[in-house]
């Protein structure tokens, strides 16, 4: 019984590859299956190659799947660009358009994969039967739907949802195309090809991208103001909020640059709003000065970084986890902040909520480190899980009797958090700045004041580290071996843990959602009994490994690093190998 399948579709910009992928993902979700879709584009803005990789399963899945079971290509030329990213499973089924006459020996698929090639008349059916050559992706959809036993109804529903209202004729043609494709499979599929998903799904699921989940989470957290400047792969957050936030009477401003984006959000927050900005690496570099101002002036601020491969412009459309150092220490001075890392699409929603919770409660900047892999992929999501964690988001305001002449904006308190008067509050007038200051906010250049106020600001950190729910553990709780990971590598790590367990190893994975300040006690708890560990990450410089060494006192003495440059997401096999490499040694020792 086939429980899951990994599909890949490659084509040119005009081929509708991504649309086809979206429909498959949506229909799988409607059937209650779990799905995970990754898009990839060539450098061309339009008309270049693109590919969609979709994993569908009856059981929860956490990664893109290392190997492709079914590949569908419209042209070998386009596919060529993705050989770096698509590895076929042995005996994979390869559907290709019969009009591409490249001899199969010349096709960029290694012979040892023993792929089963099937020529399909995608274009021909669309052109000849429907007179709509563009509908070839819908023919493909029908072929795949039938091949995998996806409910054709759900596929058609997805089509109707997208085109039904606005372009009914397009919808009709597409539906015909789906039928044509399905019919072709019934008639022509060679024997022995069995990728029919036999599984029954659970209840219908939502499908969303990480970026949309994050923006949605921000709305759920009550965001009032968003200012941003477009950048790949963070723009969809701006676009989602530009569309939806005005309906909630919030405001969105696309600014002239990132300096304006982050300062405008800070100004809005100072004036009482829940405010956020989002960008990727290059934008974050520009925002560092203001993040420091937020820390110094103690103004809540949520800053999203959807990381991409760097340094500099790097690879805008590819993922990486190498902005961790910057998030933790990119600002000049000793500048308190919070760094949160979502690890899947659902997390993007929840972390947005947590970010507002912490920013408002502790009056400091909160950086969310998402990444391209998290932000742009689509995943099935459970509605109830999304809303499961509730946080009371509140800024500490001064009591009536704290206002007036003696109001001290930076009053030293036990938890380091001082009641904040919001402009408009009578008797709360005060002056703030990025200068070091006394409790009243008056500038001071005294070293003593600087030390005292540094302590005051730092007091918040241990409290934040104690906030609950920020460390996740997967696998065998008593294992002597752990994989430490953060963010989007979680999926592959989690599956690798399962694979390693199946191989008889006693392993677990530890994935903190809060990176700075480190939730030390929860980590201690999670690491209990661990003798060896490997830190897995997508950063050439092994930033997480080094960061843990710098900040965490109880790292197992035998802690290793598996780190590589980003670009392609980390694979289950890679993690498994990293586990085996270091687990083995233990057995030897």
């Amino acid at each position, binding site marked *: 019984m086939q429980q899951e399948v990994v599909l890949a579709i490659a084509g040119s910009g005009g081929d509708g590859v991504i649309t086809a992928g979206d429909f498959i993902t949506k229909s799988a979700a409607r059937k209650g299956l779990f799905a995970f879709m990754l898009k990839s584009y060539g450098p061309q803005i339009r008309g270049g190659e693109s590919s969609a990789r979709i994993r569908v399963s009856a059981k929860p899945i956490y990664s893109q799947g290392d190997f492709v079971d079914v590949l569908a290509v419209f042209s070998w030329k386009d596919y060529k660009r993705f050989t770096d990213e698509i590895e076929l499973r042995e005996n994979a089924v390869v559907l290709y358009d019969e009009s591409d006459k490249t001899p199969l020996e010349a096709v960029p698929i290694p012979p040892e994969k023993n792929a089963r090639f099937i020529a399909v008349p995608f274009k021909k059916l669309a052109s000849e039967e429907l007179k709509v050559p563009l509908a070839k992706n819908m023919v493909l959809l029908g072929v795949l739907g039938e091949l995998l036993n996806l409910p054709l109804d759900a596929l058609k529903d997805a089509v109707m949802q997208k085109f039904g209202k606005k372009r009914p004729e397009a919808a009709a043609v597409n539906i015909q195309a789906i039928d044509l494709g399905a019919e072709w499979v019934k008639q022509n599929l060679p024997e022995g090809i069995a990728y029919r998903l036999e599984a029954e799904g659970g209840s219908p699921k939502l499908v969303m991208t990480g970026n*949309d989940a994050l923006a949605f989470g921000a709305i759920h957290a009550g965001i009032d103001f968003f200012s941003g400047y477009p950048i790949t792969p963070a723009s969809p957050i701006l676009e989602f909020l530009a569309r939806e936030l005005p309906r909630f009477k919030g405001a969105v*401003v696309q600014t002239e640059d990132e300096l304006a984006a982050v300062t405008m959000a800070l100004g*809005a*927050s*100072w004036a009482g709003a829940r405010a956020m900005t989002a960008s990727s690496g290059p934008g974050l570099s520009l925002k560092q000065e203001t993040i420091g101002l937020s820390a110094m002036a103690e103004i809540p601020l949520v800053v999203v970084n959807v990381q991409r491969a760097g340094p500099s412009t790097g690879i805008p459309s590819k993922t990486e986890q190498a902005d961790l150092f910057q998030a933790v220490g990119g600002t000049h001075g000793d500048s308190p902040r919070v760094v949160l890392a979502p690890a899947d699409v659902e997390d993007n929603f929840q972390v947005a909520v947590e970010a507002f919770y912490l920013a408002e409660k502790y009056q400091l900047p909160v950086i969310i480190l998402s990444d391209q892999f998290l932000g742009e992929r689509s995943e099935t999501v459970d509605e109830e899980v999304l809303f499961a964690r509730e946080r009371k988001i509140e800024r500490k305001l001064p009591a009536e009797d704290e206002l007036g002449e003696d109001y001290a904006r930076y009053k030293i308190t036990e938890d380091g958090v001082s009641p904040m008067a919001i*402009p408009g509050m009578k008797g709360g007038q005060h*002056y703030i700045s*990025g200068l070091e200051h006394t409790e009243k906010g008056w500038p001071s250049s005294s070293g003593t004041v600087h030390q005292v106020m540094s302590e005051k600001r730092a007091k918040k950190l241990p409290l934040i580290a104690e906030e609950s729910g920020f460390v996740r553990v997967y696998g065998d709780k008593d294992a002597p071996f752990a994989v430490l990971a953060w963010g989007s590598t979680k999926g592959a790590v989690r599956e690798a843990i399962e694979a390693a367990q199946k191989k008889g190893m006693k392993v677990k994975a530890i994935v903190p959602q809060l990176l700075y300040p480190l939730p030390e006690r929860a980590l201690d708890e999670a690491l209990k009994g661990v003798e060896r560990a490997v830190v897995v990450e997508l950063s050439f410089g092994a930033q997480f490994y080094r960061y843990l060494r710098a900040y965490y006192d109880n790292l197992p003495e035998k802690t290793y690093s598996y780190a590589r440059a980003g670009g392609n997401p980390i694979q289950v096999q890679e993690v498994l190998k990293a586990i085996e490499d270091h687990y083995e040694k233990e057995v030897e020792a």
Partner: protein
Amino acid sequence: MEKVKLTAKDYKTKIPIVWCPGCGDFGVLSAIHQAVADLQIPPEKLGVVSGIGCSSRIAGYINAYGFNAIHGRPLPIATGAKVANPELTMLVAGGDGDGYSIGTNHFVHTIRRNPDLTYIVMDNRIYGLTKGQVSPTTPTGDVTKTTPLGNPERPLNPLALALELGATYIAQGFSGNVKHLKELIKEGIQHKGFALINVLSPCVTFRGKQEYDYVRDHGVYLDDVDHDPSDWNAAHEVTQWMLTKNQVPLGVIYKVEGKKTLADEINEVQEKARAKKIYKDVRELIEQFR
């Protein structure tokens, strides 16, 4: 007539003032104190955002919500604050370096967006706080710490720039004439939309006392000549006086009402968006993901 309750004194604070004796910024401070008193703006409804510079310290000397932020960024900060809290009267203050050098990008695009802010630039034609380097408004030929042989560059004309960019209230004041300046500030506050008030506010320490004399000797009050501030071309000519006639125009150079503000735009967008669809509960957003 309503009884006047607040006086200029009520807008002072106790923070020690760090300006040099004789600094022009004292005059600007007085003018602001008097202007907001005249307008009876409740201190708690007054926001003052500034950048960094001697001039920017002013945010601490006004009984208001004062934010002496970072260099060059007071305009976007104030824009965000005004959008978030439209009831506030929002003053923005800074120096020529803050506004016309590091902050120029925001200057340009803030004018384009037209938020309801009153921007007071204390233009001393030098970097005061950092002790005397050339600024974008330093006259050609002047010796400063970074132009020891004379400034080779041509100064920027912020008034002309603002006019070209579509600003709808542009005035120039002189810190040596507090009464006049006060009126400009009041008018700027009452103007709906972005108001620029460039104030010649001499830095006695790094530009010497002659800067006062220069403005006194070359200042021409627009009220005294036949200037129509609603006439763009006339206004443009006035912005060129320093070059063409060696005269310093003082007063309202350009003013028109009725241009959409950023708040108007945001309201419009919200209304349009809500006309299409209103969510009663955040959870309804979920529909698009099914």
